[in-house]
């Protein structure tokens, strides 16, 4: 059972110094995520969702407390080790897609593989496979500016999963998408979770996202206000 724990935070505190008074973004957050979870951090804007995801993803470090990801304490990692952790085990999906505009869809998805010297033939196979998952294999030569928002976010999903990471962190992935595309993207991620066992942690305040969740963690002013596992999945559009 212990081995199933991918992420554990212990009294996690994040404080941003803001002039004279400090801004407490996270206040003693204790959370544990197990392999295969499909969970969301929900809460109003400014409640600390992004901050928590960034710390888990080792893009940011806690002020106090610790975050253990894949057995590593992120606050103690060197630049190099934290890059390695991200590269091997964590996929990111952002609200604004953040595709690199000068590269093709294929090249965008290929990029994480270039960082770890995957041989060319294997790269090709994995990129195309990831694009199959998001149903965009036929668009691999397109440039990001030729894609719709929904397609862009699906490319971002492909880029996040191409390395088969254990954890995917998605920060408000549907905030810039319409209802149809939101469901589309959510169903793809749900499929990845179910079939490949990837752990997904979302940050959202979108009802359409929340209804897919099996665990909902409510944040309020940097504190965990509620942490509930949802048994029955709601009806979807």
């Amino acid at each position: 059972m212990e081995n199933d724990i991918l992420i554990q935070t212990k009294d996690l505190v994040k404080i941003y110094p803001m002039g004279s008074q400090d801004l407490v973004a996270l206040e003693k957050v204790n959370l544990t995520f197990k392999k295969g979870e499909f969970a969301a951090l929900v809460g109003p804007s400014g409640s600390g969702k992004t901050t928590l995801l960034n710390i888990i993803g080792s893009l940011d470090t806690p002020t106090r407390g610790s975050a253990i990801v894949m057995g590593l304490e992120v606050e103690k990692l060197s630049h190099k080790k934290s890059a390695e952790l991200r590269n091997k085990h964590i996929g990111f999906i952002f609200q604004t897609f953040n595709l690199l505009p000068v590269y093709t869809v294929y090249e965008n998805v290929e990029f994480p593989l270039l960082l770890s010297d995957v041989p060319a033939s294997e790269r090709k196979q994995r990129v195309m496979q990831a694009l199959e998952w998001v149903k965009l294999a036929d668009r691999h030569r397109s440039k990001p500016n030729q894609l719709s928002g929904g397609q862009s976010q699906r490319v971002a999903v492909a880029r996040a999963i191409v390395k088969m990471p254990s954890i995917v962190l998605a920060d408000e992935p549907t905030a810039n998408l319409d209802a149809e595309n939101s469901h589309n993207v959510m169903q793809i991620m749900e499929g990845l979770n179910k079939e490949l066992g990837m752990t997904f942690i979302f940050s959202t305040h979108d009802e359409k996202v929340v209804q897919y969740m099996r665990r909902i963690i409510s944040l309020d002013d940097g504190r965990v206000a509620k942490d509930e596992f949802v048994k029955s999945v709601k009806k979807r559009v």
Partner: protein
Amino acid sequence: MIKFLIKGLLRDRSKSLFPVLTVTAGVTLVVFAICWVGGVQTNMMSASAHFRTGHVKIMTRAYAEQSDLLPVDLALVGTDSLLGHLKASYPGMIWTQRILFAGLLDVPDESGETREQGTVAGIAISVLDPGSPEHKFLEMEKSIVRGRMPQKSYDCLISETFAQKLKVNPGDEVTLIGSTMFGAMSMTNFTVAGTVRFGISALDRGALIADITDVQTALDMDNGASEILGFFTDDIYHREKAVDLAEQFNIKNTDPDGEFSPVMLALEQQEGLAGMLDMVGMMSSVIITIFIVVMSIVLWNAGLMGNIRRYGEIGVRLAMGEAKGHLYRSLLLEAFAIGIFGSLIGTVLGLIVSFYLQYHGIDITSFLKDSTIMLPDVMRARVTSSAYFIGFLPGVCATFLGAAISGIGVYKRQTSQLFKELEV
């Protein structure tokens, strides 16, 4: 990975084309500035060299000490053999002899009585010989105002201002009253072939130019000359070479006790020109330094802006698991490539412009109308060896430094912060 970076560079013009253009423009300017300042410096030297000092000059020791009095009695003798010796020993130089003398110019009326008289500063040069280098040095043909060049013995040129003062016209007879090398009085008739204006007030006030063989006869200084000027064949003053040449010559030929033994002085050892040369040299280094510093700041800033604009890309790459050191090195590599490329193009462009202006020059006559400075009419750039590489200094270093310093932000900032800056 390298391929991935190169693709990114080539496809994103704001990463490649615009930075390269900025570097190119800056480097072109630096290279051109250096050639231009160097050219102006050379041009100033060349006016002085042509009219007065040569690149090196040989006089007797006694003459050298009082040269401003134009003492013909202290002139060099046996200059034919000395010239022959010089031409044989220094094949890379052009040698020419001159006599500078003072005298009185007498303009007679129809009956032979004195109508006008004036003191004259005479310059005797090889003017009748069509192969004489003096034609090029003094640009006499271009300076003729009225009349023509001397064509036969006892033809002379006088300065236009002087001619007007004495009311002399081309074709008139004048009498030069001077003193011979041995102190006797001499009177010689010359025909005014034409009038000249050099644009150098010292000469235009009252100069007479005559052929050296005529003056040698007139002043009874057969085979003598007050000075022998030496010029480098490229007509450019080379400081070290000239000083070295003079030193070597003097060791061999100067007898420290012989008043009349020849002594060679480099351009800068005459008339306090070393000070001027140093000053011009210092000014040009100051100008060039300022230029390089300013360009460096501009290019550095461009590098800085470039990286700040890329925070989004940098954030994504870090999130995908690229190590900060790897990313930082790739930014430096890109800056280096852009710096080298831009500097190459900039240097080539700067050199093209400079070479063009070295051969064609800019006519500044209209700016010099009332000037008394000894400046040539056409200013030319001069391509020096340093022009080939000095542009790389601001071009590569500044671009590289700009990227290096702005890239430190990649290290210092929390990665999450890079995204925040993106969203603003």
